[in-house]
């Protein structure tokens, strides 16, 4: 039984290395009034504020919002990468987060070595790692490129490898960023079949996307994020129309 509970989550980004004034200005503009100070008077960007929701097995949540609304930060927080400054997040069940194409791959290592590392990270046995290798190599159509450093791959091969690797192991909770919807048409149709498999296997899906179509297609519930806060939470159609109204008004 998988479960996600987010309780009054807040995440701040400290700006330690933004020492140059121009960078600071850029961030000011981008953060649009979301700069604050923490207890030690350091400048922080308030990336998420008071996020609360809970998901049970069978829930398919879509996150919508403009660039910089906090969608990816929320996914990273649910994945346990960023720890909140206030609130609490509990995830019951194994978790896989598909956040970026590189997915922590080392470009200097060969495809095979990257697959090995992912297998070890997930605690797979030697035999399971061999299976993982075969599965990923077959899907990504890498051929002999499997023995070459990943930095020699074309961008298409890279996406295929990252995608194959990320979808080769079934988690109970799947967190997915929108890049998974990108890609050339031929790959996309092939990828969709595989992704559907994983999504169907997962008990909980959290998908962040710009594309309303993806959310409508995959999700049963939607949360609209704006400036790090929840603007609306409910059925996909309702949240989506509220979001679209706002977009048109603006």
């Amino acid at each position, binding site marked *: 039984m998988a479960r996600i509970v987010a309780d009054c989550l807040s995440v701040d980004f400290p700006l330690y290395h933004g020492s140059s004034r121009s960078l600071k200005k850029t961030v000011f503009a981008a953060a649009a009034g979301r700069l604050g100070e923490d207890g030690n008077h350091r400048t922080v960007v308030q990336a998420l504020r008071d996020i609360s929701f809970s998901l049970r097995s069978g829930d398919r949540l879509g996150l919508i919002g403009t660039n910089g609304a906090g969608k990816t930060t929320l996914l990273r927080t649910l994945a346990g990468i960023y720890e909140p*400054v206030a609130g609490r997040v509990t995830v019951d069940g194994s*978790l896989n987060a598909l956040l970026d194409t590189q997915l922590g791959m080392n470009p200097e290592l060969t495809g095979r070595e990257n697959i090995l590392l992912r297998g070890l990270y997930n605690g797979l046995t030697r035999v399971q790692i061999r299976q993982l290798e075969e*599965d990923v190599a077959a899907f990504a159509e890498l051929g002999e490129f499997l023995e070459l450093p990943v930095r020699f791959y074309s961008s298409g091969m890279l996406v295929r490898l990252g995608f194959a690797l990320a979808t080769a192991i079934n988690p109970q909770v799947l967190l997915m960023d929108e890049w998974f919807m990108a890609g050339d048409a031929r790959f996309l149709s092939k990828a969709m079949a595989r992704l559907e498999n994983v999504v169907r296997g997962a008990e909980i899906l959290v998908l962040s996307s710009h594309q309303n179509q993806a959310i409508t297609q995959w999700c049963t519930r939607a949360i609209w994020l704006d400036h790090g806060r929840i603007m609306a939470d409910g059925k996909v159609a309702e949240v989506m129309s509220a979001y679209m109204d706002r977009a048109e008004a603006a």
Partner: protein
Amino acid sequence: MDQSPDRAIPLLPSARMDISADMSATHRLRQAVADVVDGAVLWRLGLTLGWLDVKLRYRGSILGPFWLTISTAVWIASVGALYSVLFHQKISPYMPFLALSLVLWTAMSGLVGDACNTFLQSEATIRSMRMPYFVHAVRVVVRTVIGLAHNVPVVLVVFALFHKWPGVGALWCLPAFALWTVDAVAACIALGTLCARFRDIPPIVGSIMQIAFFITPIMWQPEQLGPHGWWLKLNPFNALLDVVRVPLLGAPVSLHTWMAALLYSGVFCLMTSLLFVRVRGRLAFWM
């Protein structure tokens, strides 16, 4: 290539993650301990990462890491020949001392330098998946141990040339190496964290290690200081070197030396633990 829907997909074992912004000491301590335990469970990953780092560094080179062996050998031969004359040392006791000291120091100072990048070099990984920070520390230590292993033959050859045989007492170096390993992991965590937060630290560390190289008995022997050597006790590098070096040179290590090494290590590990418990949750934001 068609994917049958019922392909054998390994299912990840169920897990539970509970992260809260609870700032209490017990909560932070529990999270830090969990990091170390989870990292230790993933030892195969740490080992492989370290091994791949070495492989990568020498990919495409014919001799590979044996370049380390060669450059150490050349270094020891030339420095040994020069300094035995400069210091009016008999070459036969001096050379084994110098070879062993230089090899041990290379590993120690190499680790300290490498430790600064423990977390910064894994930035991409840290930002894309939750992985115990302990794994990154293990990775750096493994890398250093492999480097040290490639220099061992040089020491063996020098010992054979000068008929130096330390005897069974040399086994005392084993607990000393165990202590080194613990300190090395702590150094990676401490320096890795500090350097992620304050980018000025690596050059400071570099110059400290350079000074340490000259004030620690590596090129010169402690006996040469005579009665002026009392301040050597204040040098933690000296105590740590001696617990490994003295038994390998065939002499018994004094209880005093061991106490000093344990005391310095204990204080260092304690301080590192406090630091790690305090900042672990913020580390990802510093990348």
